């Protein structure tokens, strides 16, 4: 296939992929009035910030944003720690049951989360966590993808480096802290990004467990708003844009980390 033909196809594909995003952005800046008569149009020509102003006037958007950063941030820290440790143990330490544990962790991918939310909620309620950020943070820290990524990274980590540390008198933990972690920065970057993204985007479980709108995160409140605004797409799209903008910016800036991480998950 010649280059011009490929560029033409890619342009068409990109147009299709961009279309929903363009629609979101344009509607977010379109006045409510021109949405209601004659339906949402992409070329009404009207531009307004009133949708955003309306949001900030009626809702604690800043607070929701802060909540989202706190919840996603804490989850990310916990998640990276527990998943890196587990991934390292599974890749580099010989012990009985290694294969079984890996399989067990990977099998969690097959559990339909929404179908076990009732017992999960009962548990979190009994632990007295409902209405606290921990109700959201603790259950989502350990992820199959995180453990798998870490394990894949450490499998190809040179044994010689660890042996050298051992010769110098380090135990397993010493070698892990002094030699392995400093050399695992790309892995840590990828896992941080993915964990942050996953938690930032979660809405159903936080909606059920946080209860108090003051505790909601930005994406959770988007769901709240959808029920309240019904078909006021201007307001909904303004909120949708606000809630995904941080991640889109992060993605575009740090794309090579995302791509490296996600693609590694597919190579065995």
């Amino acid at each position, binding site marked *: 296939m010649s280059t011009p033909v490929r560029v033409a196809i890619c342009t068409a594909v990109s147009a299709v992929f961009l279309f929903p995003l363009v629609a979101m952005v344009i509607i977010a800046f379109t006045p409510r009035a021109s949405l209601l008569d004659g339906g949402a149009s992409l070329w009404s020509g009207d531009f307004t910030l009133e949708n955003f102003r309306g949001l900030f006037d009626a809702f604690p958007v800043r607070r929701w944003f802060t909540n989202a950063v706190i919840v996603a941030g804490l989850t990310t820290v916990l998640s990276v720690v527990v998943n890196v440790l587990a991934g390292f143990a599974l890749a580099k330490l010989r012990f009985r049951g290694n294969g079984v544990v890996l399989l067990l962790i990977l099998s969690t991918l097959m559990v339909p989360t*929404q179908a076990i939310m009732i017992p999960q909620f*009962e548990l979190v309620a009994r632990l007295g966590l409902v209405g606290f950020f921990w109700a959201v943070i603790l259950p989502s820290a350990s992820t199959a993808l995180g453990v798998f990524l870490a394990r894949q990274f450490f499998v190809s980590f040179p044994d010689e480096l660890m042996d050298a540390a051992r010769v110098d008198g380090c135990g*397993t933990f010493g070698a892990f802290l002094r030699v392995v972690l400093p050399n695992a920065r790309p892995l840590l970057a990828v896992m941080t990004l993915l964990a942050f993204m996953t938690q930032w985007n979660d809405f159903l479980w936080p909606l059920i467990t946080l209860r108090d709108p003051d505790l909601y995160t930005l*994406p959770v409140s988007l769901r709240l708003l959808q029920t309240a605004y019904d078909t006021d797409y201007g307001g909904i*799209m303004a909120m949708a844009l606000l809630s995904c903008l941080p991640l889109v910016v992060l993605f575009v800036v740090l794309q090579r980390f995302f791509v490296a991480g996600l693609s590694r998950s597919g190579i065995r």
Partner: protein
Amino acid sequence: MSSTAVDAVDAATPQVERPRRRPPRHHRAGAAAWTMLAPNLLLLALFLFGPLLWAFAMSFQAKRSFGPGEWSGLDNFTRLLSDDVFWRALLNTAIFTVATVPVGVVLGLGLALLMNEAMPARGFFRTVVYLPIVLSTLVVSLVGLLLFDESIGIINGILEDVGLGDVAWQSDGRLAMTSVVLMTLWTRIGFSMLVYIAALQDVDPETIEAARVDGAGSFAVVRHVVVPALRPSTFFLVVVNMIWSFQVFDIVYVMTNGGPGYSTTMLVTYAYDEGFGPARNFGYGAAIGVVLFLITVVITLVQVRRGRAEVA
């Protein structure tokens, strides 16, 4: 403490005595491994496997509120067998899976092949296709509503402008399913493409060259050299995409809520409605979830076995 201070402490510690205090190495590796796994396994056991077992137990109970339920044997499961909505949800989930998995994986492969070679603006094209991956399913669903809203949606607006009239995206069951499938594909194709592009870097250029020399055209090269070389990635993508499709929830829940009627009701949305909906039928909802989990496990195991046989 400065690093020189650490060094000083290290130097002051008698080096010879250290190893003696430790048990022999093979014991230590096991202990270290379990210590490192402990936080993760603890969280999993508490928040995932515990509730999963609990859900299994609940599926044998008549339970309509929090707190203990009453054992009811196989009642929930016998009810499933004669529940038309359950069979409809099962069928819908199967249709959704068949409509999303092959198309998503094949389009991902096609785009990967297209964007693997050098061309102007390649980075831009790739970014655009990847971008939906970072959007939450909630945002994707809301944008889906904006596009496919029957009365004031963007797509019908455009169709009207060009004189094609309204399409019943929300009141026609099949079209509603189509809209859900399209939005799902939008978020999935980028991931397949990304995995394939990474795998393409490992395909041996010499094998391709050899095939070319033997007179194979581009299509034949892709079919007989590239696709077989990508088999491990294809296997991975099919398994993961199937699991995702079986568990589809967010997009359906927000875009159609299972409607119109039951034409987009999936197993997970039905389980969720039974449990959290007005019925508050916890036991029955759990039974649906258990059935879905078992189906997922069986189909994944079959896939993995077949995949192993093929790769080996």
